[in-house]
């Protein structure tokens, strides 16, 4: 079979985040590639996921170039999908922002991912059904304008 994979990517995180105690309680990550999940500076809707130590999660798997902290890193792709509950099933989430938090140590890269979820009126909120997350590392390519 021909290999048409022209844009290689490698999954480094796959998992499912839930709130066993309900929204606004401690989030729980099930899956691979993440060693901890904590809330950001908000009761709901902000999560900081720390990547596993070791390849390919930490220390260089999410490298930053010579850019300011939190500037776009061209080599990571993250998909976040809230799950719905109820009937009809709804997630309540309308917008999702993903950011990468660089280590304070030079050369380490970004060992943490921060996710911000908001409801229609732009209030940070937990998706009651939890959310799926996959993070890929991209390889190669360059800048096209």
């Amino acid at each position, binding site marked *: 079979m021909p*290999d048409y994979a022209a*844009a*290689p990517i490698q999954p480094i995180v796959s998992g499912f985040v839930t709130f066993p105690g309900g929204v606004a309680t401690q989030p729980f990550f099930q899956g691979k590639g993440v060693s901890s999940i904590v809330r950001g500076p*908000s009761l709901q809707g902000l999560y900081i996921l720390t990547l596993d130590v070791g390849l390919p999660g930490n220390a260089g798997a999410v490298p930053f170039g010579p850019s300011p902290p939190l*500037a776009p*890193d061209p080599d990571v792709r993250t998909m976040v999908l809230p799950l719905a509950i109820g009937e009809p099933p709804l997630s309540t989430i*309308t917008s999702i*922002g993903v*950011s990468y938090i660089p280590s304070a140590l030079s050369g380490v890269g970004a060992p943490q991912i921060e996710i911000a979820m908001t409801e229609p009126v732009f209030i940070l909120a937990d998706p009651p059904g939890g959310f799926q997350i996959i993070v890929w590392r991209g390889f190669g390519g360059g800048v096209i*304008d």
Partner: protein
Amino acid sequence: MTDYAAAPSEPIVQGLITIMTPQTGLPFPSFSGCGVSSIIRTPPGLPLFGNLAGDYLLTLDEGLPGDVAIDPIFGRSFLTIRGSLSNPIHLSTPIDQKSISYVASPSPGVFVAGPLPGIGSNVVRVVLAVSATGLATDPDGTDGSGCEIVIWRGNAGPDSYSTNLTGPLFAPTLIG
């Protein structure tokens, strides 16, 4: 090792769309990654009506499998907005509408909606918008820090071969 890959799909595009602001002139989109040979704002005019922001045409690389290859039926993709550093709501984005459509460019600089028989879709149109304003919006400033994109070609293997195809690489094969 057991092969659980029951639904093979092959990544043909992976990258990050950002907005570059030159010292003079208007901000323009830039793509960092693989599988795309050019990115422009969707030009105004028939049959495509471009927006001043948040509306882009990404031309796939020539050759396998990008150019004249992707059939919209087999496109699998996602768009993720990177959080804004300057939005009052920490690292969030107001962009809540993201869409991909498949476009054809039968000749350089000419774009038509939808795939063309014999050509397929060699251009992908990405539109990002904020429903609160109803406007297409760049993922820049308080609206975001870029837009990640991945496109896979589904049905990568020989199984489940469909006859409902468009591009020449996927022309139906008659099996006697």
